[in-house]
């Protein structure tokens, strides 16, 4: 029995067996081109179509959205998404592309949307017939998110939206957007409202999407401009002026600390199959094989005591975070209920970044070689992973903002605003 299996309730155990069976029969097709390392770096239509098909199949099989009510397109199970995630990861399936929909839009709509909106939009979100994006950040509103200026004005029974969003991941594929905007200019927080709005159907009319290029050379995020986009009040979540409270649900889930478990199938990417046997871009443990394969000072990096020390430190940090997630579920061993959950995004993103930096140090001279160089270790995926890690320490509330939140909400030190 696996470690995870031993903890299952009867419902979970049955469901796990079902997942295993389905996954063992499900054939993963070979992608026609290299896949990116995560969903927010999907650039091309062929990548998106390949991944969309996988999500569709996983949803049809009941492995995506399992814990949501049946009316909302879910499977109406209890605590089963985690099981599906574990099994999809163990089966080394590709990642799910509709990550902003699954991770942020779905829980927010579930907790705050009108019944009709939930029933219309959520099934298509889970199946990936509709791709979603998140329109929060603006040029003048990043860490200070409540400063958003995109404005909705009521005209007749319609809301008319004008403004400019930026860093909007997946907007270039998106059918829908969760949108934080302003309906009252006199109140910073209470002047915010939360809508869901169509994107794709409005392109070339009231919505324009312009791609931005990342430091890696990849695309994946965009600027989005609204010029008189009209929506009905059905698409307002909660009451007018409650946008900031609704946004907290989104942010909590974005940081992995919300009540709904985000469907996730891990991430077999092209990088996972690299050009060297047994090597892949993964967590800290994957550094061991990398070190054994990397020459250093006449031996290998695995025979260098300094590199060994650094690798062990990474592994210990990663294991600490894993055991922390386990301890967070044992009430008697936690003095403050949010103390560990609120750390998870910060810790995971910094481990990933330091892991990438260490992988490049292990590779040595060869770490100068990038994607597309035939001599690059692991296909040049580690330098790419290292650079992409900044996306994670910046997006979803920067590491500095996470430390403010922890210092203030958990440790009770004076607020910085």
């Amino acid at each position: 029995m696996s470690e995870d299996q031993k903890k299952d309730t009867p419902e979970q155990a049955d469901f796990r067996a079902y997942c295993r069976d389905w996954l063992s029969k499900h054939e993963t097709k070979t992608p026609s081109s290299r896949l990116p390392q995560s969903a927010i770096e999907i650039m091309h239509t062929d990548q998106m179509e390949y991944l969309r098909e996988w999500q569709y199949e996983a949803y049809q099989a009941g492995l995506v959205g399992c814990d949501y009510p049946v009316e909302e397109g879910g499977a109406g199970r209890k605590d089963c998404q985690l099981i599906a995630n574990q099994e999809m990861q163990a089966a080394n399936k590709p990642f799910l592309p509709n990550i902003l929909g699954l991770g942020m839009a779905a829980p927010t709509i579930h907790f705050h949307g009108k019944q009709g909106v939930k029933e219309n939009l959520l099934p298509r979100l889970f199946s990936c017939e509709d791709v979603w994006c998140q329109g929060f950040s603006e040029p003048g509103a990043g860490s200070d998110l409540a400063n958003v200026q995109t404005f909705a004005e009521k005209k007749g029974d319609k809301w008319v939206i004008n403004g400019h969003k930026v860093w909007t991941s997946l907007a270039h594929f998106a059918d829908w957007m969760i949108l934080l905007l302003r309906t009252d200019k006199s109140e910073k927080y209470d002047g915010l409202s939360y809508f869901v709005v169509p994107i794709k159907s409005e392109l070339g009319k009231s919505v324009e999407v312009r791609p931005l290029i990342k430091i890696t050379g990849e695309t994946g995020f965009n600027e989005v401009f609204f010029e008189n986009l009209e929506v009905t009040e059905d698409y307002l979540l909660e009451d007018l002026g409650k946008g900031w409270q609704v946004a907290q649900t989104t942010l909590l889930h974005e940081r992995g600390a919300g009540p709904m478990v985000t469907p996730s199938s891990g991430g077999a990417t092209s990088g996972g199959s690299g050009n060297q046997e047994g090597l892949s871009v993964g967590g800290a443990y994957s550094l061991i094989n990398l070190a054994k394969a990397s020459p250093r000072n006449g031996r290998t990096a695995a025979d260098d005591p300094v590199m060994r020390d650094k690798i062990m430190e990474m592994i210990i940090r990663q294991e600490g975070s894993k055991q922390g997630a386990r301890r967070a579920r044992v009430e008697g061993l936690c003095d403050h209920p949010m103390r560990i959950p609120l750390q998870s995004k910060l810790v995971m993103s910094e481990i990933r970044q330091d892991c990438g930096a260490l992988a490049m140090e292990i590779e040595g001279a060869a770490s100068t070689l990038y994607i597309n160089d035939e001599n690059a270790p692991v296909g040049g995926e580690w330098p790419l992973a290292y650079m992409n890690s900044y996306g994670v320490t910046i997006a979803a509330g920067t590491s500095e903002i996470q430390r403010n939140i922890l210092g203030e909400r958990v440790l009770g030190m004076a607020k910085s605003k």
Partner: protein
Amino acid sequence: MTQPKNFAFGEDEKMLRDTARKFLEDNLPTDKLHKLVASNPDLYREPESIWDRDLWQQIVELGWTTVIVPEENGGMGMSLVALTALVEESGRAALPSPFLVTANSSLVLRECSAAAGGRLLEEIAGGKTASLAITPKTGSWTHDDCDVALEGGTLNGTAWFVQEARKVDSFIVKAESSKGIALYEVPAQATGVEIVPDTIVDLTRDQAHINFNQVKVSSDQLLAEAGEGSAALSRAEPGLLTLVAADMCGAAEWQLQTTVEYARVREQFNRQIGFFQAIKHPLVNVMIMVDHAKSLTYNAACAYDTEPEHAEKFARMAKSRASDVAAYASNRSIQFHGGIGFTWECFVHLYTKRQKHNQILYGDASYQRAKLADILMGPMAA
């Protein structure tokens, strides 16, 4: 084997831990501890062994020393997880006592097959205290390194860095004979035993080196036969590492909470100093590290109880991370108290000193990582 999801930390363990926490909060608040152990700041003071014997008597009555003793030896036969929770609390209180060393002794005795091992465990369950005399002058933690010789039933030589030597009734002595390493029980009062106190930094402990001058030992003191001592110590070692890590986790949580509290009351530039991110963010980093160390420590304890094949690996992770947080929490706790933090009168130095001692005990952070690398990566090419 696999571990239970909750680290086997159930209602019984929680009750034991909560009672211990309350007991120490009531009976050894930090101001009382400071009065007890820090009354004499003299740089040239004689080495001291200061502790509250009445408090210890109550602790024995509460049963802490019987927790890990098997039921057949008159103990509670509970898990290392339960003991870990108690040690974490004693670390939080920086308790000066023979608790940790007696617990360590019990772990070693549980691995000893000779009859005297069971007898000594029974005596420990009845209130006797013991400490390990297993370290040579080099400070090597390798079980084969030894400065005490066994020949013709007589011990000669010196055991170094013996913890709480002046608080305990008996020592578990590692001795080398031509047939290998043996373990013997030697009472502190035995003829030929000379306890030479060390002057140490930590005010909450005492330490000594012990000279053995023609000390006679008999078969009813034999714990592990010559050739079996190292293996017994090796099997107990993950437990010893876990318990020291637990002490550091408790102490680091005290350092975190105490420094956060100061950052919430001390004002400069018309603001609480915790407003400044140069204070706030490092304290968050301390918290994250404490949480990792604590999670790793309970994982190590649970592994010791339920999956011995992984015990050493997880124990080294825990000891390494806990040593790192001990160093970092100590550093920030003094710095963030400013001038007052640099005074004898402020409590933080008591914990900084205990933590430094803990970091070294049974091997520091980088030593643990080197050992872990041997497990996970295999030995280094020559």
